[in-house]
C-alpha cells in the first residue's frame, strides 16, 4: 500500500518553496536567452575604376555613403571581413555593385547630390533582396529647427533632409513659429512633396498645408488654437488637438471636406495631446492626463461610445506616441528616473520595454515605413539633435549638426 504525504508536510514544503522564491527575487535574477543577432558582418571593398573621369576621392565619398547606409540598415555591420562581400566597380559613369553572385548596375552623374540618392536607392534595393526588408536610406525626413533670430526672438522653421543627415533644405520662410511637420503619405521620390505643419503666423497656432514650391494655406477652419496634427496613412483624415470647445480636446476631420471636424475625446480637468493613427486608420493613440499624469490611451475613430483604453502602465509620464506601420508596436517617450527615454509597447504581448538609456532627454520618436527604424530628437537646455536607430542595433546615430534645436522629425512613405 502506498503512503500518502501528510497535508501538513505538503504545506510546509510549499512555504519553504515560497520563502526561497522570495529571497531569489530579491536578488533580481536576470536571464539572458541566447538569440542569434540579425546583424551580420560585411565587408565593402574600395571601389575599383576603369576608364572613368571620376577621381579616387569622389569614389571614396560614395563608398562612405554606401557604408553608412549599410551600417544603419539594421542587418549589416561593415568590418574588415564578413560573410557579405560588396565589390563596387566604376566604368565610365556606371557603378556595378557585386554581392554574392548578383550584380547591381547603377548610373552615376558625377554630381554628389544626385549620386548620393543613387547610392541610397541601391542600398535600399540590396536590403530588399538580401533581407526581404526594403531599406529606408532613400527616404527623407521632415522636421523643424528652432533658433533665435537677430532680435533675440524664438523662431522655428520647417526643414527636410535625407535620412543620413545630408542635403538639408529649408521649406518654410514664414519668419514665425512653425513646428510639428509631417509629409502627406506616398511622397517618396517627389521633388515637391506636400506636408502639414503648425504655424503661429497669425499669433495663434493653426494647421497649414504647403509644398516646398508653394505658400502655406490654412487646412483647418476652426476657431481657437489647433496643434499637433497627425495624418492617417490612407491620406483621408487628420487628427489634431484643438480648444475649439474650450479645452485641449482630440479632434478628427476628413481631408476632402466631406465631414466637419469632430470632437473625438474630451475629459474634465484633462489635456489631450499628440494623436497618432494606427496604420489601418481605425484607431488613434493619444496622450491624456485625465487620470493624473500624462499617459497614452487608445480609442477607435468611429465608435458609439467615448471609450478609451490605457496603454502605458509602467511609467508615470508618457508622451509622443508613434504607431509602427506594421501595426504591432508603439514607440513613445517615457520619463524614467527623471529622464525622458524612448520606449516600445508591443501590442502582441502587451509589454513595455526601453529602447534608449543615458542622461539626455529623448522624445518625438517616429517610425520609418519598414517598422524597423526610428528617428527621435534629444531635448536638453534649448538644444536638440536628430538621432537614427533601429530595433536590431541599439546604438543611436546622430544625423544632424550645426546651430538650432532640431525637433519633431518624421519620415516620408513610399
Amino acid at each position: 500500500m502506498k503512503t500518502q504525504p501528510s497535508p501538513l508536510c505538503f504545506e510546509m514544503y510549499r512555504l519553504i518553496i515560497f520563502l526561497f522564491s522570495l529571497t531569489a527575487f530579491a536578488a533580481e535574477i536576470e536571464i539572458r536567452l541566447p538569440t542569434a543577432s540579425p546583424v551580420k558582418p560585411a565587408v565593402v571593398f574600395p571601389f575599383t575604376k576603369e576608364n572613368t573621369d571620376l577621381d579616387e576621392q569622389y569614389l571614396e565619398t560614395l563608398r562612405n555613403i554606401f557604408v553608412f547606409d549599410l551600417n544603419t540598415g539594421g542587418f549589416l555591420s561593415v568590418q574588415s571581413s564578413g560573410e557579405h562581400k560588396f565589390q563596387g566597380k566604376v566604368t565610365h559613369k556606371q557603378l556595378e555593385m557585386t554581392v554574392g553572385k548578383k550584380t547591381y548596375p547603377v548610373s552615376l552623374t558625377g554630381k554628389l547630390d544626385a549620386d548620393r540618392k543613387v547610392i541610397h536607392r541601391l542600398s535600399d534595393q540590396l536590403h530588399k533582396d538580401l533581407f526581404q526588408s526594403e531599406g529606408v536610406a532613400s527616404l527623407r525626413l521632415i522636421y523643424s529647427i528652432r533658433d533665435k533670430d537677430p532680435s533675440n526672438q524664438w523662431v522655428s522653421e520647417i526643414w527636410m533632409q535625407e535620412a543620413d543627415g545630408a542635403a538639408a533644405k529649408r521649406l518654410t520662410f514664414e519668419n514665425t513659429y512653425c513646428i510639428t511637420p509631417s509629409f502627406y503619405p506616398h511622397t517618396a521620390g517627389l521633388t515637391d512633396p506636400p506636408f502639414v505643419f503648425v504655424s503661429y503666423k497669425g499669433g495663434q497656432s493653426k494647421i497649414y498645408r504647403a509644398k516646398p514650391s508653394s505658400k502655406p494655406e490654412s487646412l483647418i477652419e476652426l476657431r481657437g488654437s489647433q496643434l499637433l496634427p497627425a495624418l492617417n496613412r490612407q491620406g483621408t483624415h487628420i487628427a489634431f488637438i484643438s480648444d475649439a470647445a474650450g479645452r485641449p480636446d482630440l479632434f478628427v476631420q476628413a481631408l476632402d471636406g466631406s465631414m466637419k471636424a469632430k470632437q473625438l475625446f474630451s475629459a474634465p480637468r484633462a489635456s489631450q495631446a499628440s494623436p497618432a493613427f494606427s496604420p489601418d486608420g481605425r484607431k488613434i493613440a493619444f496622450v491624456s492626463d485625465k487620470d493624473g499624469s500624462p499617459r497614452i490611451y487608445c480609442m477607435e475613430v468611429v465608435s458609439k461610445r467615448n471609450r478609451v483604453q490605457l496603454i502605458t502602465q509602467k511609467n508615470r509620464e508618457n508622451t509622443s506616441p508613434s504607431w509602427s506601420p506594421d501595426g504591432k508596436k508603439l514607440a513613445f517617450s517615457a520619463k524614467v528616473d527623471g529622464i525622458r527615454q524612448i520606449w516600445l509597447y508591443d501590442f502582441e504581448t502587451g509589454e513595455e520595454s526601453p529602447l534608449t538609456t543615458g542622461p539626455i532627454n529623448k522624445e518625438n520618436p517616429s517610425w520609418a515605413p519598414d517598422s524597423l527604424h526610428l528617428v527621435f530628437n534629444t531635448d536638453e537646455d534649448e538644444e536638440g539633435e536628430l538621432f537614427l536607430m533601429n530595433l536590431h542595433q541599439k546604438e543611436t546615430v546622430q544625423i544632424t549638426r550645426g546651430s538650432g534645436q532640431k525637433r519633431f522629425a518624421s519620415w516620408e512613405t513610399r
Partner: protein
Amino acid sequence: MKLGILCLLVLAAGCSKSNQTWEDVKTAGNYMQRGVDSLWGKDYESKMLASEAEFIGPYSDEFIPLSAADLKASFGTDMALPQPKGIPGQDGMPELSSFYAPANALKSLFQAVHFETDDFIVRGREEMHALAQIASYMKKHPNVYVVVRGHCDERASASYNMSLGLRRANYIRTLLVKNGVDLNRIYTVSRGKEEPLAEGHGPDDWKVNRRAEFKIYER
C-alpha cells in the same frame, strides 16, 4: 501709560478673533452694497441662470461636438467655453500677432498668473484677486480685447506642454468669463515651453516659466 500697554496686550491676545470679525463685517458690507446697487439696476454677475447653455451660449456649429451625455457627465466644475465669435484677421478683428504687451499703468494690472507643476488651476488667493481686477477693468472697457498665452516649464515633453499651455490659457479665460467678462473678447494661445522667461534650469526658473501672460488690443 499702564492702561495703554494693557489695552495693547488685550488687543494682541484677541487679534485673530477681531480680524475675523472685521473680515465678516467687510463681507456683510459688500453684500449690503450689492443689494443697494441692484435696487438701482446695477448689474453684477448675480443673474439667475437656468442652465449652462444659457451662460455660455450655444456651441458653434463649426464642428460635431461629443454627444451631450458624454459632456454632461462631470463637467460642472470644469466648464468649457466656446471660442470667440470674431475670427482674428476677419471682419475688422485684428490678428492676434498685433496684440501687444500692456504698457505703463496697465502693466501692473495685467500681470502674469502662475501655476503649480503640471497643473492648470489658479490656487493663490492674490492671483485670484488680480484676475478679478482684470475682469472688472475689462467690464469697464468694452473696447479692450485680450489674448491669454499659456506657458510651461521645461520638464515635460515639448508636445505635451503645447496642450498643457492651452489648458492653462483656457482655464484663465473661464475664470475671467465667470467674473463677468464677455467671452467674445478673450482669445487663447499656447506657447508650451517654447518661450521661457527664465533660462536657468532650477526650481525657481521653472516657477517663473509656468505662467499665463496677457496681451491686449484696444479697438
